[in-house]
């Protein structure tokens, strides 16, 4: 009997360990951002103190998202610092007119419509409510992409079991939870396209 228990138990524990410890390691592939961007440096030193100084709204309410190379070139058309990252930015991107291929943590599928104007301007959400305090970070965390679905780990949440602070990630159920808490019901095409 104990033999059965032990055999069963060893399989059971092995599975638990594999599922909770090993699986999250192998489920994601690590990718590095093209440049080591320091949010904190920009916030502290250059007078770019709020998120909206680079991540702004256009006139028709569209959100610019990750800034284009022109925004960086406004200050960095020539080297103004000493870091290797800035050298790469100026020489390989700004001077050649290429867009930096940033890996976007919050990239949603094409059939999702998220309006920053409605959530920030109308609902008054703060950037950090969904994106965390990325503005205070001094390095970009590595971009972990799910090997099967192809989306960033930030969308699903760091915990595979979706435990942790709310919102755990940026999946549909996270949006639904917040909407439910605030009593704002939206139909399918309110968030999809």
């Amino acid at each position, binding site marked *: 009997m104990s033999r*059965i228990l032990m055999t*069963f138990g060893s399989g059971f524990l092995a*599975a638990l360990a594999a599922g909770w410890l090993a699986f999250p390691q192998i489920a994601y592939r690590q990718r590095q951002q093209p440049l080591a961007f320091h949010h904190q440096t920009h916030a502290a030193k250059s007078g770019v103190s709020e998120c909206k100084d680079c991540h702004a709204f256009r006139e*028709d309410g569209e959100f610019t998202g990750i800034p284009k190379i022109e925004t960086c070139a406004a200050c960095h058309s020539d080297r103004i610092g000493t870091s290797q990252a800035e050298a790469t930015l100026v020489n390989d991107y700004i001077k050649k007119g290429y867009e930096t291929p940033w890996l976007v943590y919050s990239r949603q599928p094409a059939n999702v419509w998220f309006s920053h104007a409605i959530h920030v301007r109308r609902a008054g959400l703060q950037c950090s409510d969904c994106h965390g305090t990325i503005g205070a970070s001094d390095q970009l965390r590595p971009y972990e992409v799910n090997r*099967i*679905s192809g989306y960033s780990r930030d969308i699903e949440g760091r915990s595979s079991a979706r435990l942790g602070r709310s919102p755990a990630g940026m999946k549909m159920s996270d949006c639904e939870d917040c909407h439910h808490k605030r009593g704002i019901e939206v139909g399918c095409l309110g968030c999809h396209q």
Partner: protein
Amino acid sequence: MEFTRRDLLTWGSGITAGLVLTPVPWKLLDDTSIWTQNWPWIPQPARGPVEVKNSFCALCPNGCGMRVRMAAGWPVGISGMQHHPVNRGALCPLGFGAHQLNWHPRRLRQVGHQGRACSWSDALAAFRKACAEGPVAIIDGYPDRAASAICHGFARRHGSYRVALRAEQRALLPYEKWSGVPAAALGYDLENTGTILSFGAPLLDGWSAPGRFARLWSVRGAGSADSQLRLIQVEAAPSHTAACAWRWVPIMPGSDAALAAGIALVLHEEHRTAPNAPVPSTTLADAAARTGLSVDAIRDLARLLCEHGPALAISAQPNPAVAALNVALGAIGTRGGIVRRGRRTEPLAAADTLPSHLRAVLVDASVPADFLASTEAEIFRFAAWEGSAGRNDWLLPAPGFLEELTDIPTAPLSSIETYAVAPPLSKPPAEVKSAAQFLMAVDSSIPDVEKIIHARCRQLFQSRAGHLQGEELAAAAPPESAQAFEKQLWSGAVWVGDPPHFGGIPCRLTAWPQSAAPVARAGWTAAWPAPVLPPLATKLYQESSLREPPERRAI
């Protein structure tokens, strides 16, 4: 202790039980389902800033104004420009899919000589040689543009300039013959017409600038019995225009001229014809027999024309009998009739007859795809897509839709002069070159399109004639300087000339003209000059039965 099969099964069930209590199966299910919804071969739209810009369609000489929605730097949607006096926000159905034409599988991307791939320098060398050896002819399909001035300037030095006229422009040729006023300076004052007698002209289905008449007809009481604008469609078979017309008059095919003569006879009998108008020599009975209508029906038509005037007769193709009917109706140079706009005195030389002993002929991309040059000379054919008719010794890839800067001169058949500038909104492939650029490479003394446009804008501003029309202009004061004026034009404003001047078209017609040969019915794609249809045209004729598939247009 050996590890038996039972142990394996027990261990396996332990693994299974454990796995169920981990996120693994649920996560794998979720991730796999997302994977199945994101097949890599399904194209995704580009993400990028969306903006709306003004431009004008130069695929046909009507130059309809468009609002073009751009995403990530490429056109993704077309809608009409409300403030353009010619199309007033409407476009032809194919125009809404025109932004996809530049990637049509039959896009020309390679210079070709008699089926072999060549380079631009080969073509230039051959053309230079041809110019040195003998006269050349330049054929233009969209006259009066800046590019046309380049073609004309080149032709003055090296040969002759000709224009490939469209059927609707040709329909005005009889008036040119009888009055000396060039057909290119004439238009229809449809905005003031009371009754239109259309001899098979597809007014609501691809005639002239399709949007112009559609808007006008709609605004002036379309479809209602007491409409302000009465459209009488004379046509053998029911067309879309006949279905919507105030009245449809079915006649025997090819008897348009007989009906025109019959109506003119009735007008003459009842002393309602214009002074000095010629009288047809046939009889009313003859007209009735040919058309299949009764004599009373013809009298009734004549009465209708006089009842709700001004009346105007329009034919799709040149028909001297219909033109003579307009003389009888007194519609030449009067309100609601044929009017003169602009001060042009030189007629356009048609490309139907080319000079003999030509060494080469250069055909611009604006010339419709079904144009056949009747010549033995070497033909240099510019086109953006494959499918141009005839023997084209050289096939030269030209810029496509919205890919080059052009200006938009007065639309054919309109009652007022207009001018606009159409900036390019789509990046052309590296391999294309327009005929104007080609000619500039051969003769470097020719100024480029942009310089000509600057000069024209300055000239227009200094003339102090007309006014600018544009959505942002409604509140603003008129521009103070030539630069401000030009800037408005570059951002989509339209210069509109003074209202038409009535009178001034002396018509000398002494005898009723011989009847013309029966004309073929203009199909719905006759107005579309490019060799290929926009890909989405399949909605109209393959994925529905709304339209007949076109005979010669490829998709």
